[in-house]
C-alpha cells in the first residue's frame, strides 16, 4: 500500500472495518466472493439446512442449481419487450403480453435445462464457484443481530427460495450462448457508426462482463458512436481530466474549497467498510480526486453524501478490464497495476460518473428538488398500483420520504448488493434518462415486491425497520431482472399519464 502521511492510522482502522456490520443503509458488500468473511462461514453453513428444508427439492448448493436452471431467457426474448415499446398498449394488453413473454421464457429455459446440465463444469466466471459465494445466496448476514432496526426480520419469514422462473442470469452456464452474445456486442462495437438504439436494445437485458466496460462508456455518452473516433476521444478526455487535476487539485486546502475536500476526505475511508479493495489508500485517493474535481466543477450541487457511492460501480467495472480473470475485483491489489493503468481507470470513472450526474443533478442541488419530486411521484405510483400497501402505509403514518429518500439519493445502492447495482445500471444506461425516470419505476417495483412483507408488519416501527433493512443480500441478477420487467411494465402503464399528474409536487 502506498504510504501517505495519514496512512498508518487508516491502516489500523482497516481491521475494524471488516467486521460484520449492518445498519440502515450500509452498503451491502459484494462483487465477488470475499463476503462474508471466511470466519463467519461456519455459522452460516450451520444455518443453511434449515432454509433448505423449506424449499422442496433445493439441495445444499441450491444456488448453483438455480443458476443452471435460469438460463438465458431474456437474450432472445428481450426483442419482444422492445417491440412492445413501439405499440400503444392498453393495460390489459400489457399484462397479457408480459405473461406470454414470461411463459415463452419458461418453456425455453426448461428445454435448455438438460443441455446445460452437462455444461456446468465450464463455469469460468469469477467467484461463482467458491464456497463463499454459494453461502452468499441466502440471507444470513443479520443472524447475529438482536437489536431493533438492524435487520432482525431478515430471517423471520420474508425469504422464500427463488422460484425457478426463466430469467436470464448474465454470467452463467451457457458458454456457447454467452460467447455468441459477446460476439454480437463486438460486432456492434465494430460498426463504423454504431446505432445507439441497437446497442441499447442489446444492453437492456444485461451486458456480459467482458464487454461491459466498453458498452458502458458508449452508452453513457463518454465514447462516441463512431468507432474510429473512440481511441482519440479516450486519449483526449483522459488528458483533459488530468489537466483538471493539475489545475484544481491543489486548491483543496484553500478556504473556498476546504470544507468540500474535508467532507470527501472523511467520507471516503468510511464507505464500503466491508469490501477490502476500498480499504486501500491508493483507491481512496482515486475516489477523493474524482469527487473533488467533480464537486468544484459543479458548484450548484457540490459534493453531497451519496454521490461518493456512485463512483463505485464505474470504478469496479473499469477495473475489471485490467485484471486477471481469476482475481476477485474486490480483492485486487491496485498497487500491482501500473500507474498508467490506474490513471485510465480513474479518468474513465470520472467521466462516466459525470455523465450520470448530468442526468440527476437536481437530486443534489439546494433543497434536493429532484428527490422531493421523485418521492412524491413514487407515492402517486404506489397509490395507483398497490392500494392495500398504500393504505397500510397511510394508516400507520409511514411517509414515503422516511424510507425512499435514500433510494433516490443513492440510487438504491444501499439497498441491494453491488453486483446487482451493476446489473441494474446496464439497463439504466440503456434507457433514456434511466437514472432519473426509469429509476422511479424501479423503485415502485422494488417497494411493490416487498408489499406482502410490509403488510405483515402491523405498526409504524415494524414497517420502517423492514423498509430500511430489506432482505436483499442474497439477490442476484434474477431478482434484478424480475424487478426490471415489472418496472418496464409500469413504465408502459404510465407512459401516457400526464406528466404533471404523476410528477406534481
Amino acid at each position, binding site marked *: 500500500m502506498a504510504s501517505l502521511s495519514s496512512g498508518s492510522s487508516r491502516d489500523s482502522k482497516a481491521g475494524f472495518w471488516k467486521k460484520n456490520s449492518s445498519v440502515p443503509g450500509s452498503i451491502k458488500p459484494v462483487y465477488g466472493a470475499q463476503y462474508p468473511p471466511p470466519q463467519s462461514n461456519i455459522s452460516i453453513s450451520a444455518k443453511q439446512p434449515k432454509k433448505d428444508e423449506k424449499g422442496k427439492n433445493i439441495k445444499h448448493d441450491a444456488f448453483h442449481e438455480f443458476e443452471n436452471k435460469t438460463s438465458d431467457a431474456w437474450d432472445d426474448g428481450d426483442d419482444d419487450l422492445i417491440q412492445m415499446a413501439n405499440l400503444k398498449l392498453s393495460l390489459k394488453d400489457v399484462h397479457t403480453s408480459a405473461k406470454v413473454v414470461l411463459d415463452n421464457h419458461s418453456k425455453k429455459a426448461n428445454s435448455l435445462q438438460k443441455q446445460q446440465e452437462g455444461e456446468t463444469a465450464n463455469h469460468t466466471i469469477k467467484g461463482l464457484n467458491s464456497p463463499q459465494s454459494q453461502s452468499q445466496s441466502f440471507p444470513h448476514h443479520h443472524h447475529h443481530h438482536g437489536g431493533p432496526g438492524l435487520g432482525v426480520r431478515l430471517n423471520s419469514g420474508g425469504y422464500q427460495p427463488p422460484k425457478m422462473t426463466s430469467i436470464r442470469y448474465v454470467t452463467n452456464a451457457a458458454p456457447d450462448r454467452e460467447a455468441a452474445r459477446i460476439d454480437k456486442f463486438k460486432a456492434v462495437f465494430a460498426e463504423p457508426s454504431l446505432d445507439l438504439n441497437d446497442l441499447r436494445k442489446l444492453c437492456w437485458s444485461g451486458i456480459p462482463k467482458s464487454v461491459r466496460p466498453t458498452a458502458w462508456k458508449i452508452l453513457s455518452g463518454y465514447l462516441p458512436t463512431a468507432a474510429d473516433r473512440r481511441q482519440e476521444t479516450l486519449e483526449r478526455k483522459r488528458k483533459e481530466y488530468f489537466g483538471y487535476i493539475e489545475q484544481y487539485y491543489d486548491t483543496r486546502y484553500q478556504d473556498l474549497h476546504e470544507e468540500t475536500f474535508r467532507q470527501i476526505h472523511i467520507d471516503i475511508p468510511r464507505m464500503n467498510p466491508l469490501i477490502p479493495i476500498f480499504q486501500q489508500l491508493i483507491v481512496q485517493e482515486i475516489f477523493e480526486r474524482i469527487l473533488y474535481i467533480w464537486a468544484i466543477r459543479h458548484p450548484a450541487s457540490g459534493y453531497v453524501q451519496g454521490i461518493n457511492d456512485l463512483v463505485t460501480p464505474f470504478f469496479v467495472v473499469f477495473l475489471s478490464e485490467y485484471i486477471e480473470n481469476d482475481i476477485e475485483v474486490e480483492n485486487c491489489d491496485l498497487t500491482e497495476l501500473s500507474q498508467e493503468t490506474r490513471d485510465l481507470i480513474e479518468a474513465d470513472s470520472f467521466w462516466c460518473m459525470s455523465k450520470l450526474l448530468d442526468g440527476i443533478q437536481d437530486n443534489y442541488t439546494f433543497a*434536493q428538488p429532484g428527490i422531493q419530486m421523485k418521492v412524491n411521484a413514487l407515492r402517486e405510483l404506489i397509490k395507483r398500483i398497490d392500494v392495500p400497501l398504500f393504505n397500510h402505509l397511510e394508516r400507520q403514518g409511514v411517509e414515503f420520504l422516511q424510507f425512499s429518500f435514500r433510494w433516490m439519493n443513492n440510487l438504491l445502492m444501499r439497498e441491494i448488493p453491488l453486483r446487482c447495482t451493476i446489473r441494474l445500471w446496464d439497463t439504466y444506461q440503456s434507457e433514456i434518462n434511466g437514472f432519473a425516470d426509469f429509476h422511479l419505476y424501479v423503485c415502485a417495483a422494488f417497494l411493490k415486491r416487498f408489499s406482502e412483507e410490509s403488510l405483515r408488519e402491523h405498526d409504524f416501527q415494524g414497517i420502517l425497520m423492514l423498509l430500511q433493512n430489506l432482505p436483499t443480500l442474497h439477490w442476484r441478477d434474477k431478482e434484478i431482472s424480475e424487478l426490471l420487467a415489472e418496472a418496464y411494465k409500469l413504465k408502459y402503464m404510465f407512459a401516457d399519464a400526464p406528466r404533471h399528474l404523476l410528477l406534481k409536487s
Partner: protein
Amino acid sequence: MCDPIFEYQFRLILIGDSTVGKSSLLRYFTDGKFDEACDPTVGVDFYARLMEVKPGVRVKLQLWDTAGQERFRSITRSYYRNSVGVMIVYDISKRSSFENLKEWYEEAREHIEPHKAIFVILGHKADNEENRQVTSREGRRFAEMHGLKFFETSAKTGQNVEEAFASIAKDTYQHLQDGHIKIEEGWDGVKAGFSRPKETVQLAEAEGESRCC
C-alpha cells in the same frame, strides 16, 4: 408477534454536524455495538428501543438519526415537528462541531414550536481524550447557559450512553406527568402506548393515527 407493553412512546431526534458520531451513538444504544467506521447517513434513519423511566414504567423511544451534512437540512428539518426530545451532539475532538451547537439549537427550537421539547447536549467521542479540543467545562457551560442537561458520551466505551438516553426519557416522562407536555392529536412527539390489555388505549391510538388527506 407480541408487542412489549409500554406506557408511552416518545419520538426523539439526534442532530449535529456530520461525523460527530450520531449513528454510532444510536447503534450502541439500540444494539450494544460499536463500529469504527460506517457509511455516512443520508436523509434520516430510524431506530427504536424500550426503556424504563421508573420501576415498572416503560416507554418506547423512537429515534431519528439525521444526516449532518448541510445539503440534507431541508429534509431533516421536517422531522423536528414530531419530536419531543432533541439530542444535540458534538465531537469533543472537533472544535467546529462544538461551535455549531448554537446554530443547531436555534434551528431545532424554531422548527419544533409551538410544541415543547426536551433538549440535551452531548459531547461525544469522549474516549478520544488525546485529541480533545473542547473541555468538559465548555460543554457544560453551554448547556447550563441554555438550561439544558449535558453528558460526555462514548460509543466506544459506552460511557454515559445509557445515562443520556435515560435522562431525556425520564425528563420527558416527568414533564408529561406534570402536564407541561401533553399528548396531542396530530402530533407524534408523544403517544400513549399499550399498557394493560383491559384498557382500550390500543383502539384509541389506532384511530388517532389514521390521518386522512
